[in-house]
């Protein structure tokens, strides 16, 4: 085939243009590929380490391994809160399409109540997608085995073992220790946008109230991690034990409480409502901080059923309430110790007498006393708890000096015991009146007699009265109550010894002497003796009017409906000659102090005394054998003549 020349030329021209441009195109393509190569240099060589890290964070994941929660121990190492293993059944939300059907499958293997089923479905709805939900705790071994055998046909269900908080003494420490419970949605929200992943763990429990709440961070420990390789859906492909991070267990918390004393306290209160607080009046260690009636903290760990909670919340004796710290009551006659001390400090001689005829007319009204006590001096006034004596004594002193002494002894104050919930109550004075009663800012003399017998505006709690009693018994130092001994082995609160009380020790000795007379010949003379040989105790009763008797509602003592009766107080220390233990006991609406509170205080005090080796040695003095050389008593017993004001000796720790 031949072609015309002109034709050929034109073709040639088209070819020339094409060839030039084809070269440009080839060049551009090469340039483009080179640009890709340059980008690869940037990504694969320059930024390699960054993407390697990102790749590893994709590939590896740490599954939270919860740490065991720290133990809470009493002063002798007795566990008050510990952990026990539990088999549980989890529903893995990211693998379950139809939770209801999965629950049906699960109910073939273990019983699931309709109520519980609703709760679980609600949890599934509310929680984050990737967090499993616990369907059941505390499976039996048979149930656990049954689930594991059938696991392959139960997608989205997984049985494993975790730890559950356990309170071996149930209710005795529920108010002090508090309890742990599921993290609520509100609590989770309060943690901000990135909560500690531990909080999302289905078995995790957060401290509520008491020590569990106050020291939650220390008790919680640090979560460990199980290093796993996951795919893009988050499903574990492989485990890598070498890369695991071990959890750090929570720190153990040692309290100064003594489980024996506290258990006995709850026991003797029975169904009564009230509180008992005991301190070592040489060190300030709190040996007992009990509120009755109580509740089983273990119920709250798994989630208390609504009906049970309602019953607890609605019961008139308020078991959920810590009456030792949060409830304030008029101290009644226990407050007379403070009035008497104020009198001594202000130069009133102990020999001052007032005459009680059973009633006293003053200020246009009649003031009553339990009976006609006759003429009494200060000691007799305390021992017999004569109201008419103290109406007049308080009137001669005025409210401000009394308030000053009362506050010095801890009334109306709060203490650094680390657990939440203390209510200070009130010690009134003229300044209080001026500030809080703008319509009637003047303190009327007629308000002083009531204050003199611990009524009127005066309100305190059991811990304050125990502190007051321990300061009287110590005789020198302004003791601070110390509830927590150590956290993670670190001794808590060992500041310089408390400052001395700004009162004459001789005046405190007088008060102690008068309190000893209360139990020998005074208002508590009818209370059974300690029956511990040479060991005696001293105390002060209080019968606090809960409200006005106007309109025939209630009467002095334990008459009328429960809620109308007087509160029964007793403060005590022992041994009377060398005080070691000081306590306060309150029986709410218990009637007379000597009838309800004092006998219970006796039981509690006896436990403390009998556990004290020094006291035991004094009680169990061997009788010298007839033919043997007589041993001087002082050789086996602690010298009883030691002045009570002497600083404590470390050897005198109860064990």
């Amino acid at each position, binding site marked *: *085939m031949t*072609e015309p020349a002109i034709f050929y030329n*034109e*073709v040639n*021209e*088209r*070819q020339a*243009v*094409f*060839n030039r*441009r*084809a*070269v440009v*195109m*080839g060049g551009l*393509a*090469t340039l*483009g*590929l080179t*640009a*890709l*190569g340059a*980008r*690869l*240099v940037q*990504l*694969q*060589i320059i*930024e*390699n380490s*960054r*993407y*390697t890290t*990102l*790749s*590893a964070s*994709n*590939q590896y994941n740490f599954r939270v391994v919860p740490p065991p929660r720290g133990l809470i121990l009493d002063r002798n190492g007795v566990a008050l809160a510990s952990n026990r293993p539990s088999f549980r059944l989890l529903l893995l939300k990211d693998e379950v399409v139809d939770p209801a059907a999965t629950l049906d499958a699960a109910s073939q293997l273990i019983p699931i109540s309709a109520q519980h089923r609703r709760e679980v479905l609600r949890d599934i709805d509310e929680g984050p997608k990737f967090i499993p939900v616990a369907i059941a705790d505390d499976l039996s071994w048979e149930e656990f085995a049954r689930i594991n055998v059938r696991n392959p046909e139960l997608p989205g269900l997984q049985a494993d073992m975790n730890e559950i908080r356990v309170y071996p003494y149930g209710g005795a420490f529920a108010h002090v220790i508090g309890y742990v419970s599921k993290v609520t949605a509100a609590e989770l929200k309060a943690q901000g946008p990135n909560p500690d992943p531990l909080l999302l763990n289905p078995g995790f429990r957060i401290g509520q109230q008491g020590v569990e709440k106050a020291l939650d961070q220390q008790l919680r420990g640090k979560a460990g991690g199980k290093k796993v*390789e*996951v*795919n*893009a*859906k988050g499903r574990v*492909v492989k485990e890598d034990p070498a890369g695991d991070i071990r959890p750090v267990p929570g720190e153990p918390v040692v309290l100064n409480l003594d489980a024996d004393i506290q258990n006995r306290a709850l026991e003797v209160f029975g169904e009564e409502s009230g509180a008992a607080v005991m301190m070592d009046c040489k060190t300030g260690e709190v040996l007992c901080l009990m509120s009755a009636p109580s509740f089983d903290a273990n119920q709250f760990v798994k989630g208390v059923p609504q009906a049970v909670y309602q019953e607890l919340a609605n019961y008139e004796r308020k078991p959920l309430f810590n009456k030792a710290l949060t409830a304030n009551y008029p101290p009644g006659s226990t407050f007379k110790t403070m009035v008497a001390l104020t009198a001594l400090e202000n130069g009133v001689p102990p020999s001052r007498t007032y005459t009680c005829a059973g009633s006293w007319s003053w200020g246009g009204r009649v003031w009553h006393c339990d009976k006609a006590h006759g003429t009494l001096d200060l000691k007799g006034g305390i021992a017999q708890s004569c109201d008419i004596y103290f109406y007049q004594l308080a009137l001669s002193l005025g409210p401000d000096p009394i308030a000053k002494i009362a506050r010095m002894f801890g009334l109306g104050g709060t203490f650094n015991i680390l657990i939440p919930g203390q209510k200070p109550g009130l010690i009134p004075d003229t300044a209080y009146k001026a500030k809080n009663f703008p319509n009637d800012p003047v303190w009327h003399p007629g308000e002083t007699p009531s204050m003199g017998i611990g009524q009127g505006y005066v309100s305190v709690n059991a811990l304050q009265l125990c502190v007051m009693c321990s300061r009287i018994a110590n005789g020198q130092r302004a003791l601070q109550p110390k509830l927590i001994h150590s956290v993670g082995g670190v001794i808590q609160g060992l500041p310089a010894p408390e400052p001395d009380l700004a009162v004459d020790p001789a005046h405190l000795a007088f008060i102690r002497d008068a309190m000893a007379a209360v139990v020998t010949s005074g208002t508590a003379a009818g209370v059974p003796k300690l029956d511990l040989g040479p060991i005696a105790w001293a105390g002060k009763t209080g019968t606090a009017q809960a409200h006005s008797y106007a309109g025939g509602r209630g009467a002095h003592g334990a008459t009328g409906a429960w809620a109308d009766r007087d509160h029964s107080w007793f403060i005590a220390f022992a041994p009377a000659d060398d005080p070691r233990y000081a306590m306060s006991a309150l029986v709410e609406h218990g009637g007379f102090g000597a009838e309800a509170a004092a006998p219970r205080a006796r039981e509690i005090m006896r436990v403390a005394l009998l556990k004290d080796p020094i006291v035991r040695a004094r009680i169990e003095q061997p009788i010298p054998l007839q033919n043997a050389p007589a041993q001087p008593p002082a050789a086996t017993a602690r010298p009883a003549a030691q002045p009570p004001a002497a600083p404590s000796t470390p050897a005198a720790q109860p064990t």
Partner: protein
Amino acid sequence: MTASALTRPGERDRLIVKLGEIDWRLTAVLCLLAGAGTLMLYSIAGGHWNPWAAQHVALFSVFLLLMIALAVTDLRVWFVVAYPTYVVGLLLLMAVMVVGHSALGAARWLKIGPIHLQPSEIMKIGLVLALARFYHGISAKEAQLSWKLLFPVAMIAAPVALVLKQPDLGTGILLAATGLLIMMLAGLSLRLILAGTAAAAVATPAFFYLVLKGHLLKGYQATRFMTFIKPDADPSGAGYHILQAKIALGSGGILGRGYGLGSQSQLNFLPEKQTDFIFATLAEEFGFLGCVSILVLYAAAILIAIRIAATSHSHFGRLSAAGVTATFALYVLINGAMVMGLAPVVGVPMPLLSFGGTVMLTVMVGFGLVQSVRVHRYTEVARATGALV
């Protein structure tokens, strides 16, 4: 020697001569690329031939034979079927509008019995053939700037509009870009090219602005575009693809993490790992050296094909081979840029590497055409009729 044989009409029509004239270097490069794809698909499946590697290698073998068969097909046959192919492709694209099957919200498929037909793939070849045939028939002057250029513009615009309507942004871009490149290669006025480039430089910011304002692009395309601009904004959402691809690439380093050891692809963090993002898988397991080797192979294929185009004696042969090469190069560049986070994710696979029969068929048919251009480089093609000489 061979060249002289090819110049003799009687001699060059013998099958054995034609087979000898196939560019075996190009064929080898294509086989290497498909082999690399098979290797990666085997790895992604966790060291199994199923579900991808076996099918990939089987399809490639079939298509390789098809390519050889097409290579020995007379270039004048290609010339004859050029317009019909284009028209059929256009009709099928219209049909897809009416009765197409949708995947991922876009109607792209026609189902004829057991065959799933994607008309836009036919159009990739059809458009190249039709444009080459058109330019074959006009003079250099006319190709530079004349009213006749309205024909190629319309020929490009029609399928592009139909494809964008599906919507398939990736194919639309590919068709438009290929068409424009053929127009330029055919001799479009340089002044016009420069003016067009300048206009594009102005239009691009305007385009960005309109997209950002929420006009112009449809739902997922707008999202992809935004994602391309700011991929880190939502790493688990729309930016996931790009971010995971970059992690796979970057963590590969120089030598890669080892065959079968790429955690991004093996653990499914990398989306579309066997199709559009297979290059990221390769980058993760074989590193920079592996990537550069693959890019060199692509460069080799492109340059060999361009050389084939340049050595053709017919304008039809030149333009059709160059058009196929342009499509192929655009595939590689767009996919590469997309995987490396330099371009938005528009759903363009890496030819021969990515799993997927449709695109592989298109590419191998295209290279059949390129090979045919080489085999028939001395064949004269008549201007208008295309009658076999």
